């Protein structure tokens, strides 16, 4: 680790100021990704601005539109315990281990946008809105590829708003070492259609599987997936743990399982 300063503001406005008056500041969420990166000397921020003490960024509530609003510094454990959006709570409950869930935050996960992370699938699959200190970004515009998002330098995710679907489920097939998603599929059925978001599989990160969305919007059953072709393996990740062809196959299988388990 290189030396850095750590600031612990208690208001978003102070955090924004602390971010902007340093040439090289970085938000610190639960540190589950950032701290190991620092330990390996792969990053050298001059200042870390901790989100943990900002009360307005911690907690879960519903807005007037019935959306579930989760503060950007809310832990995975808190989301897992909430239960008002079962598909989302179920996803949060299976991220990492208890230590990771008690520290890691939704804002950190979405800002990091690891191609195998779970939350990006929920945000995209729900059509969530990412709220920052500057603006609101629709999930469809937010994810830009592996570790790449629409966030600008110094922008802080303060809140994430999830429309709550009629039924939903996240089917996660774990990579045996990291236990991140080798392939994870989030399926959400809304009154006006179905969204299917896939994580873990693609070299361009989380994405929607439109063929499945169309089929499921017509008829929401595992059978609708059974009769689909698996997506193309082009552009899917091939690594030690699975080929692109295998991942393509898993996308189909996991989508079917998510539909079957959706509640």
């Amino acid at each position, binding site marked *: 680790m290189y030396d850095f300063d750590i600031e612990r503001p208690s208001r978003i406005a102070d955090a924004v100021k602390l971010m902007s008056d340093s040439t090289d500041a970085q938000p610190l969420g639960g540190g589950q990704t950032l701290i190991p990166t620092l330990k390996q000397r792969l990053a050298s921020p001059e200042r870390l601005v901790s989100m943990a003490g900002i009360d307005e960024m911690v907690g879960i509530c519903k807005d007037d539109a019935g959306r579930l609003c989760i503060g950007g510094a809310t832990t995975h454990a808190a989301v897992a315990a909430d239960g008002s959006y079962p598909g989302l709570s179920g996803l949060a409950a299976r991220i990492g281990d208890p230590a990771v869930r008690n520290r890691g935050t939704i804002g950190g996960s979405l800002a990091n946008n690891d191609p195998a992370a779970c939350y990006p699938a929920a945000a995209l699959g729900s059509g969530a809105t990412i709220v920052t200190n500057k603006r609101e970004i629709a999930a469809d515009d937010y994810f830009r590829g592996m570790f790449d998002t629409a966030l600008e330098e110094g922008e802080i995710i303060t809140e994430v708003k999830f429309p709550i679907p009629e039924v939903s489920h996240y089917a996660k097939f774990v990579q045996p070492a990291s236990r991140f998603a080798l392939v994870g599929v989030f399926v959400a059925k809304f009154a006006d259609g179905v969204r299917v978001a896939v994580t873990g599989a693609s070299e361009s990160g989380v994405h929607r599987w439109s063929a499945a969305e169309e089929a499921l919007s017509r008829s929401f059953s595992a059978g609708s997936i059974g009769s689909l072709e698996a997506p193309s393996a082009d552009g899917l990740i091939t690594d030690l*743990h699975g080929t692109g062809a*295998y991942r393509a196959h*898993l996308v189909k299988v996991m989508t079917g399982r998510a539909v079957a388990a959706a509640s």
Partner: protein
Amino acid sequence: MPKDGGIGASSKRREDLRFLTGKGKYTDDINLRDQTYAYFIRSDVAHGTINSIDISAAMKMPGVERVFTASDFEGVGGVPCGWQVTDRHGQPMQEPKHPVLAEGKVRHVGDPIAVVVADSLAEARDAAEQVEIDITELPAVLNMKDALNDGATKVHDDLTSNLCYDWGFVEENRDAVDAAIKGAHHVTTLELKNNRLVANPMEPRVAVADFDSSTDEYTLYTTSQNPHVIRLLMGAFVLGIPEHKLRVVAPDVGGGFGAKIYHYAEEAFCTFAAKQIGRPVKWTSSRSEAFMSDAHGRDHVTKIELALDKDGKFLALRTDTHANMGAYLSTFAPSIPTWLHGTLMAGNYTTPLIYVNVKAVFTNTVPVDAYRGAGRPEATFQLERVVDKAAREMGIDPVELRRKNFITEFPYATPVAVEYDTGDYHATMDKLLELSDHAGFEARAATSKANGKLRGFGIAHYIEACGIAPSNLVGQLGARAGLYESATVRVNATGSISVMTGSHSHGQGHETSFAQVVAEMIGIDESQIDIVHGDTAKTPMGMGTYGSRSIAVGGSAMVRATEKIINKARKIAAHLMEASEADIELKDGQFTVAGTDKSVAWGDVTLAAYVPHNYPLEDIEPGLEETAFYDPANFTYPSGAYGCEVEVDPETGKVTVLGFTAADDFGNIINPMIVEGQVHGGLAQGIGQAMIENCAYDDDGQLLSGSYMDYAMPRADDLPMFTVDHSSVTPCTHNPLGVKGCGEAGAIGSPPALVNAVVDALQRAGHDVTHIDMPLSPDRVWAAMNS
């Protein structure tokens, strides 16, 4: 009735109190006054020529004491290899120099190039970033077969090729084996890989070295399974330090699994540097460094052929293995694919003709050496896989085919140079079938099928050679060390006992089980006995712990020393009771004169030994302390039948291990609970190898699985409930305890059982799959089903 102490009791592991409450004293807990920290700069390329190293900027960085490179090690020896293998043509193996720091060339990712020693680790790391190293990358040698082609890039320019040795065993049998295979009714052939593993003990390696200029004495604290071996290798071969000036301490060690047997460059570096700079030097491996500097395990590529007659009798066996040595020869590396592998190829069977060929190959990878089981898992895996395949090909039940060929008469001399003293393989097989409810399998398979899952059952029967080993024999086989063990039993005046053993405990529970043996022999409470190990200044010269040798060899030395103690104590007791020594009996800590009610307690005798007022001074010396060295007459041969039940998800290829049964014959058992724990640990590692563990390099020699993000270690939920049994007992005939050793069995017997089970599941479902290489990851199983 379970005993509550002594041999056969499940005494609680006394060491666990300190381990589980954070009070263990590990090497990293040792901090010496004024100590410095070493940071190793390691190669990030697999193969390259070092053009220049510029340390000038780094030397000026804050806190830097000194920066070392290979030029500081002129006149210092290389890290030695402890075993010389002789090839098929009678020539010694090719043995490259293994410098402490890379000389002119780097040969694997992780090869140390330079070391910064500074006041703090952070300062050492800062300065390390200022060391400028210019390397011209060379093509990496990775594939073992390609490495042996004419004109292949050489890992070591001064060797004639990348071939370390071409070993044939038994060379005289070669033609007869070829002929038998040629003429056989049926030949089953199988090509397979034994996947490369990283041992991953929970505690990474650490070295802390100190030099006292007033006495010329060095002390090295290190995470070792065998401190005396380190003292010998490092003192005599690398640094030229006489043994009486070098103390090596291996305090609490958090797991070894083989990877902490070897003498490593970092130990020599710290010891050397401590004198150079006149301050203690400490190095603690990070987990990332461990992946690229701890010796790896396994990594064999094998073709095996089994010839059978029409009734399924084994006629001949031929195997051809390429064994990866990595870039340099680690301490025992050459012996693993040869003497610890070829000699086991008979397994439990009466196969009359066997020929084993092993080509050991240098590659641009981390050195490979023993890992839990060491050679024996590689032998067992190929043998038990080919036997299973043969059974399927010939339409014979795999259990029956094994039974048909079991050795039943002992002692049995195999055609591969070893003699099994005892065993009862039908008994362990019976036990396995009973405990795993083999008879109920079909019903369970039907239930799985109804749930859309494919169920399979696989077995393996293993033999291992443990209690390593007779010194005169291993000497003939090329070992550059003896393999006896030692113990000093020091009885204190009040009767309590300190046992100094050359065995080292790094999780095995010796402090408990060794004490049980001495307690049993004398008849006193275990709490009166302490086991001291891991310090060359405290214990007699010992060879340490590996090869499931501690109770068989170290325990036997302790028995011999305790016998000497008892003999002397009887003389003292006879004197005290004015009786004849021949009439003295020892029971429950009381010496009695046979046929009388005269008795004297253990404590009275020990007190007399140290306060010899009424004492036979003319016949015996005062005091009660004895040392014994024990060199076994043979290896020990534990064996067992392992069975595994799996379910395969046909949609994803994911394998779930539903149950695992281990029916072992370990000879006599000292502490059943500790034995069970050892088997559990071995099974976890064997199942880990078969299911998820895989050390992989890419085509450039970069380590793909260099962290826990990609190297999967088994966790509790990867493992089934284990059924472990060791009630089949055929005691070892040649050691005083009749024990065989249990540390490695689990890791040896489980991988073939698991792969056999998965192949069984797939074949039952109609898939034409005869083999899948480990680990049986879902994508591999799915690909096999869909190819």
